[in-house]
């Protein structure tokens, strides 16, 4: 039973939005009696006039996440007159009536074959029906239409614009001896709904495919690129990030518009005009970082102010990690323009003009812009502390701010005339910067963006959160197209996808490769 339901309605969360599976003994007119687990309806009223009409609704409304809801009513006996109405009803519509007569109710009647659309006047629609006939009623929640079937034959669309969020299956009887049985999916249906389902799936896909984001084509592509680059950087997939960023580098750089660097900064969330950052909350306040290319490679690295302020209350792990790396970097005196930061030091660090080739390393150790992969300046490397008292003083001063234990190793570097050949050279290894990059990146992103997760993860989590809202109040499209379905399709092995896409048989959602 449960299994059948899951097959019919895979995206319905029964705990939130139960599927109507029986009639409601508490939501029927008194002339109606229910038997067989509330699936069989017997008329027990006087049956003399319309005033004796009696209807019943199901226990639950039809969840939109069904996409297509379908039930069948078998007329066991048409009784005296065969005044039988099958249809849908909003809650609170009078049950002393046949479905369709009143606003908010819709019905197909057996005695005349007419449909009644919130009105006492019927329209001719299909054949009459009586004893032995099976009448199916389908609600298409993608297009908000209702159709009927008779003995397994599709009778076509009966009602449109059925957008009310809670519609209940409804049956009304009016003459003595009328008896019907209902199949809500407990048993196989007489009508094959799979073809309708396929149509709706196509419709649902088109709804999404035709949806136009309020972005130009180019902006849309750029947005996708940003999400991907953000993910690659965030998770430290450096080689992929490098290769990926190269593939659109010249487009963005030559453009006079978006510079790759700015672009990457935007990915870092700094240039996106993100509002609402609570004041004083951030420990690390990034601002515009000059491109390394703007800085003189051979020294005279001017430190801009206020990129990173050292404050006492930084998150612990990060603070330690960062400080000790900072020390290393000062020793290196990378073009720390990359990582432009003014550490809260007594020395006016913007006076930090260093003589040519004093101490240089390279390699884009830029903390947030960990994307600078230039390989062109290795030549400048490896000159040591030469006698620049200013730099030495700065380094020492900075060292004082560090946790003693953490700084010890970094400080030891200074004991060597050539730190790169010292036993502690690993500290200078650019690889050492990566954990710092990662933790700093997280901290920066976290500050600016509410969350420390990559945008891609946020998009998916957010979509997952939207789903239950849609299941309650949205469109039936979600029964065919939703985030869970897309995620599930990811787990179909590539090889299968390839085979299926090559044979050209599968739907495009399943195929993705190459």
């Amino acid at each position, binding site marked *: 039973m449960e299994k059948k339901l899951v097959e019919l309605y895979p995206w319905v969360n029964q705990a939130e939005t139960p599927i109507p599976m029986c009639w409601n003994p508490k939501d029927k007119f008194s002339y109606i009696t229910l038997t067989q687990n509330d699936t069989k309806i017997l008329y027990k009223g006087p049956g003399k006039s*319309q005033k004796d009409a009696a209807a019943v609704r199901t226990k639950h409304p039809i969840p939109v996440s069904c996409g297509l809801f379908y039930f069948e009513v078998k007329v066991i006996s048409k009784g005296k007159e065969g005044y039988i109405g099958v249809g849908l009803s909003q809650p609170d*519509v009078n049950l002393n009536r046949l479905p369709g007569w009143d606003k908010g109710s819709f019905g197909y009647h057996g005695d005349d074959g*007419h449909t009644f659309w919130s009105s006492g006047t019927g329209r001719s629609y299909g054949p009459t029906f009586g004893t032995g006939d099976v009448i199916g009623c389908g609600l298409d929640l993608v297009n908000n239409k209702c159709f009927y079937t008779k003995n397994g034959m599709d009778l076509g669309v009966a009602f449109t614009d059925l957008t009310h969020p809670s519609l209940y299956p409804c049956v009304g009887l009016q003459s003595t001896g009328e008896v019907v049985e209902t199949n809500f999916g407990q048993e196989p249906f007489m009508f094959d709904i799979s073809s309708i389902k396929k149509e709706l799936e196509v419709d649902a896909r088109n709804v*999404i495919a035709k949806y136009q984001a309020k972005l130009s*084509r180019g902006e849309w592509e750029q947005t996708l690129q940003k999400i991907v680059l953000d993910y690659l950087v965030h998770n430290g997939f450096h080689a992929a990030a490098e290769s990926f960023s190269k593939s659109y580098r010249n487009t963005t750089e030559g453009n006079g518009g978006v510079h790759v660097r700015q672009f990457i900064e935007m990915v870092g969330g700094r240039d996106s005009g993100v509002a609402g950052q609570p004041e004083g909350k951030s420990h690390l306040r990034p601002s515009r970082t000059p491109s390394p290319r703007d800085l003189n490679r051979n020294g005279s690295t001017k430190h801009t102010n206020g990129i990173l302020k050292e404050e006492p209350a930084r998150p612990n792990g990060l603070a330690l990690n960062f400080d000790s790396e900072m020390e290393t970097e000062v020793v290196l005196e990378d073009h720390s323009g990359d990582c432009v930061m003014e550490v809260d030091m007594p020395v006016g660090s913007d006076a930090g003009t260093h003589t040519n080739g004093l101490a240089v390393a390279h390699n884009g150790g830029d903390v947030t812009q960990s994307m600078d992969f230039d390989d062109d300046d290795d030549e400048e490397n490896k000159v040591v502390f030469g006698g620049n008292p200013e730099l030495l003083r700065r380094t020492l001063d900075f060292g004082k701010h560090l946790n003693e234990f953490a700084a010890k190793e970094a400080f030891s570097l200074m004991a060597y005339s050539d730190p790169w050949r010292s036993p502690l050279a690993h500290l200078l290894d650019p690889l050492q910067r990566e954990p710092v990059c990662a933790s700093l990146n997280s901290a920066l992103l976290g500050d600016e963006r509410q969350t420390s997760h990559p*945008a891609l*993860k946020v998009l998916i*989590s957010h979509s997952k*959160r939207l789903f239950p809202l849609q299941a309650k109040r949205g469109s039936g499209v979600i029964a065919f197209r939703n985030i869970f379905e897309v995620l599930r399709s990811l787990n179909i092995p590539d090889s299968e996808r390839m085979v299926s896409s090559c044979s050209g048989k599968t739907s495009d959602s399943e195929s993705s490769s*190459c």
Partner: protein
Amino acid sequence: MNPANPGAHSPSSHRGDSVSSSRETTTRFPLDDWMEAVETEHVPRSDLNQIVLDYLINAGHKDAAVKFAREAGIVLTVDVGLMDNRVKILDAAHDGRIADCMKLLEETSPDLLEYNMDVYVVVMKQMLLELIRERKISEALQYAQDVLAEKGAEDPTLLEDFERALALLAFDKPEESPYGDLLDLSKREEVKAQLNETMLAADGRSAESKLALICKMLLWSQDDLKKRGVTFPRLTDLATGLIVDNTDRSSGESHSVLQGLMM
């Protein structure tokens, strides 16, 4: 059957309409709670990796795809060699080598452009623009003439587009002219994206990456819910994943609209 007196027995006929149901939708979703849920929601890393890999392959970033798979420890079950032709064509479009691009297309999928006239037009337009960008003025004129003689009659918009493009020739610095937007490099991206879709579709593959689908679905879902009067925190920037409390914002917007009208 018809009731004798339609509607007479329906004292409650107005109760069930959308007024009552819209009331129940005023359930609030405080931003903080929402963010916390978004934060704690588990999304397997492998899913995210698959989405990214799918994008890289779909968009024709072969090298990045291979490197990503290596770094993320994904065994590539797809023969990326199959991408080569598509990558070459996309690279040519990316670099503005439209002639190469068309030649490669002709070799690999001869009738593709003929069957996709809209894309063909876009490509031809770009061809002309690239000639102008390189200041190959006589070639540009010749090209425009040839194409228009052949196709212009069929397609009046083509004529119009070409006229705009040729107007660029009147300027010393076309890039800075009022028509400079035509030479924007993002146009190449558009050509590239359209070619990519066409090639993928011609191969019976999904023209759209999962990532694009996810983004589209997200935006559509939000619009659909909003249309139905549901209030919920909205994600307003795909690239950063910024989520804002929509309740406050929408009331603010309507307020400013009112003010605007009053002034």
